Structure formats: structure tokens, C-alpha cells
């Protein structure tokens, strides 16, 4: 028996609409609950004061600073490495067993659970290289962890730049590097920024790998060799050890808002780049 295409059409349409609403509902629920429970906690003092009594009272200032330090430093390390690798893979090599091997390695790295990165960071950076639980060990571990994302997104972005643009650039007497710098990278910038944003999200939201490498000190990390904690770790410990659910939700609100803030800034930069190079 054949079903009337108009009916199938309608069914599919309703199905898809329902799916879209499901997704949005889940998102709204999560954000809604977090804000409902946590927003009353958030005020000037919460953001700018130190925690007291393990975080039961006071604010989360060191965790905010720790998050910014960790995310910023790992992005600063991983971006040049990742974009460099992507350019090497797309512009300076022909497809070979070697490049396939690198690509396979990158894909595999991207699929490893973060706790394994934490374990590796703990054994290698914290113990073997005697860094102890420190910002530095955390940054290095996180750098390795986000590198695959940056490489993959950058490589796709660089590869998507039309060959003709490069040819035109060469025909106007540009060298290979000038072409990459002036034509390929600007055109790939939105894609690269997307990768960086995804990585910031991962860095800011990570707990397992951080606890193993950066530790969870509540002090403000003033040097690379000091331990510290990020908002996500703070949230995890507050909730896990039953210290204060209110403060945990307050931390989550700040976390969500800061991710939103980073995204807004990234979109702003992206739009500027697109406006300039189009």
C-alpha cells in the first residue's frame, strides 16, 4: 500500500519540528534550572571575593582567575601549534602515508576521554617532570587535549579556501608564505575561530584532566608553578562533597555567562574579519 505523499510530507514535517523543539526544550531547561537555582547567589561580592570555609561562604574569585589563566594560556599555546600543523598538512605536503598517519593520530587523539589526558599529565608533567600540581601542568595537559580540535577545524578551514584565490595571489607575484598570510589565513579565519571557540568551551568545562594536573587549591595562582582551581572544578567539588549546592549553582551561572561572553566576543571578531575580507 502506498501512503499519500502529502500525508508523509506532513508527518515528516511534524516529526522534524518536534525534534527541534525537543532539543531547544532541553537547552532551555538546563539553563533555566541553573539560573533559577544559582542566580540569587551571583552578585559583586560573589565574583570578587575569596571563598571561605572551603567555599561554603564567600565568593569564587580565585576560580574565575584560574579559569581565565588556564583557558587563555592553553589557547595561546595550542592555536599557533594547531594552525601551524594544519597549514603544514594542507599547504606544504602532498597526500602521503606520512600525512595520513598524522591525520589518523589527530583523529585518535580527539577521541580519547579527557580523564586519560589527566592521567598522562599527572604521570608525565606532575610526577616525571616534577612540576607538581600546578597551573603549568594543567596548561600543558589542556593544550595537548584541545590541539586535535584546533588542528581539525583549522585544516578544514584552510582546505576550504578556493585554489583559485591562491593561484590569483601567485599570479600577482606573491610567494607561497605571502599567499598563506594574506589570502589563505584571512579567508580561513572564521573556521579557525570556530575551532578556538570550541576549545575554549572544552577548556572551561573540563574537570577530570584539571584536577589531576592543576590540583584544586583554593588560593589564587600567582605563578605557573602554583596550584589552582577552575570554576568547573570548584563546582564539581562543591557539589560532590556536599559543601554548598547554592554556591555550586552560583558558580555554574558565572561559568555559563562567561562562555556566553566569550562567544559574543568571538562572533564580534569573526564578523569584523568577514567584513574586512569579503
Amino acid at each position, binding site marked *: 500500500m502506498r501512503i499519500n505523499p502529502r500525508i508523509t510530507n506532513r508527518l515528516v514535517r511534524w516529526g522534524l519540528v518536534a525534534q527541534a523543539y525537543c532539543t531547544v526544550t532541553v537547552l532551555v531547561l538546563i539553563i533555566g534550572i541553573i539560573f533559577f537555582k544559582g542566580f540569587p547567589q551571583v552578585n559583586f561580592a560573589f565574583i570578587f571575593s575569596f571563598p571561605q570555609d572551603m567555599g561554603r561562604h564567600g565568593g569564587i574569585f580565585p576560580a574565575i582567575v584560574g579559569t581565565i589563566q588556564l583557558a587563555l594560556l592553553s589557547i595561546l599555546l595550542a592555536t599557533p601549534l594547531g594552525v601551524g600543523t594544519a597549514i603544514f598538512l594542507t599547504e606544504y605536503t602532498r597526500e602521503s602515508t606520512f600525512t595520513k598517519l598524522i591525520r589518523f593520530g589527530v583523529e585518535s587523539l580527539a577521541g580519547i576521554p579527557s580523564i586519560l589526558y589527566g592521567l598522562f599529565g599527572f604521570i608525565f608533567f606532575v610526577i616525571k617532570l616534577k612540576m607538581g600540581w600546578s597551573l603549568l601542568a594543567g596548561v600543558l595537559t589542556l593544550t595537548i587535549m584541545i590541539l586535535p580540535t584546533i588542528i581539525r577545524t583549522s585544516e578544514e578551514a584552510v582546505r576550504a579556501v578556493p585554489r*583559485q*584565490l591562491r*593561484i*590569483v*595571489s*601567485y*599570479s*600577482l*607575484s*606573491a*610567494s607561497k608564505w*605571502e599567499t598563506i598570510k*594574506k*589570502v589563505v589565513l*584571512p*579567508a580561513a579565519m572564521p573556521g579557525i575561530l570556530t575551532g578556538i571557540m570550541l576549545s575554549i568551551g572544552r577548556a572551561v568545562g573540563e574537570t577530570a584532566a584539571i584536577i589531576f594536573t592543576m590540583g584544586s587549591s583554593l588560593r589564587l595562582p600567582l605563578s605557573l608553578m602554583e596550584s589552582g582551581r577552575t570554576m568547573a572544578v570548584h563546582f564539581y567539588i562543591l557539589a560532590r562533597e556536599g559543601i554548598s549546592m547554592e554556591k555550586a549553582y552560583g558558580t555554574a551561572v558565572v561559568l555559563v555567562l562567561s562562555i556566553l561572553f566569550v562567544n559574543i566576543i568571538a562572533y564580534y571578531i569573526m564578523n569584523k574579519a568577514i567584513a*574586512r*575580507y*569579503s
Partner: protein
Amino acid sequence: MVMETKIATDKLRVSFGKVTVLKDVTIKVHRNTITGFMGPSGSGKSTLISVINRMIDFENNVRIEGDADIDGKSILDGSINPIELRRRVGTVFAVPIPLPRSIFENIAYGPKLKGITDRTTLHRIAEDCLKKAFLWEEVKDRLSTSALKLSGGQQQRLCLARTLALKPEIILLDEPCSGLDPISTAKIEDALSELKSEYTIILVSNNTKQIARISDFSAFFYLGELIEYNTTDKVFTTPAESKTEDYIQGKFG
């Protein structure tokens, strides 16, 4: 009048893998003329110009034999820097491809690579080149808007202006009007006719009428061979080869 040779090839043979696309082509292109290269697709005319600007370097698996020189100096020599060569040999491609930035930045691209950074100098170059490409009047008030917003015909004239900004000696145009309307085509042709007093121009075209209209010399290529080469008058009125005649009359191609 005595014609000075600008570009010369000697038994130039180009193969991609096992396929030979240019077969022992020997031709002399004269200074300050427009030379039309015509022939059906696959005749090797585009390959020939990609040797002259060394853009062939970006193809894989190429073998080049014979020689090609500009002003009597080989350009296939290892001592030639292709980047500097491309400042002397400008290229306009079939499809206009503006760089994704402003009109001004498109023209400034080449001069900036040469190290010219002074804004006034760059603006003077832009104005001068846009005038020569017959585009100035249409864009003079919006140099900072995106080049991608121009029409196809305007984009192609921008590409010509951008090439002129390199201050080349030679301009190669690879079917520059293939996607353009008749009015845009006429503007490009007018620009070329004025430009030949300063430059040596090679125009690759499938449009035999266009070659007849504006070129001084015409070359007919077929399956990688140079079949006939003479003044445009001779080629179009009394072609020596029957293949040339058939092609011009549109019997094949």
C-alpha cells in the same frame, strides 16, 4: 616596420605525465603588439601562456623541453626567480577572481608585495590603473567597498587593473571575455587596444571575431601544434593552412 621580439619559444614541448599538450612550438611574439592565440580547447594555447608566466610550476607531473625566453633571456633557467618573473608578466584569467577584500586593496595587493606602503602612492597607482582599465568612472566613489560586489564585467576590468598595478611588461589574458556580456567585452577590448603601446599583450580567445578585431598577429593552435602564425590580416584573409580556414569559418572548434 621592424618588429622587435619580446617573447620567443624554441621547440617548446610540454607534457603532463604521458600526455604531450604542446608539441615543439616555436613562436616569436613582438613587442607592443596584441597577439591572439586561438584554437579549439585542448590545443595547448593556455599551456603556452602558463609557461610564459611560470604558473605551470603549480601543476603536477609536468615535463618541459625546449626553451622559452623574454628579451632574449631564458625564463626556464634555474636562475630565474618565478616571483620576479610574474611582476614582469601579468595575467588575467578567464573567470574574474577578485580577492575577497576592497576594490582598493585588490589593486594595492601587488604593489604592497613589492614594498610600496605609502597610501598616497598606492592611491595614485589605483587611480591610474583603474583609468587604464576603463573602470575608474564606475568605482571612483566606492574604492573601499568589497570587490565582490562588482558585476562580472567590472570584476574582470578590476582584474586587469590589478595586473597593471604590477607594472608588467607583458600581459597575458586567458579568454578574459568568455563569461562577459558584449558591452563589458567591448570595454575590455578598448582598454587592450590602448594598452598595447606600453605593453606586449597576448590574448587567448575562442572568439575568432575578437582576435580579428583587436589583434595585430594571430596564431592558430591545434592539438598542441602551432599550425599558423602571421599578421592577423593574412591569417584571416588568406590563411595558408586549410585547418586555419576551417576553424576561422567555424567548421570545427
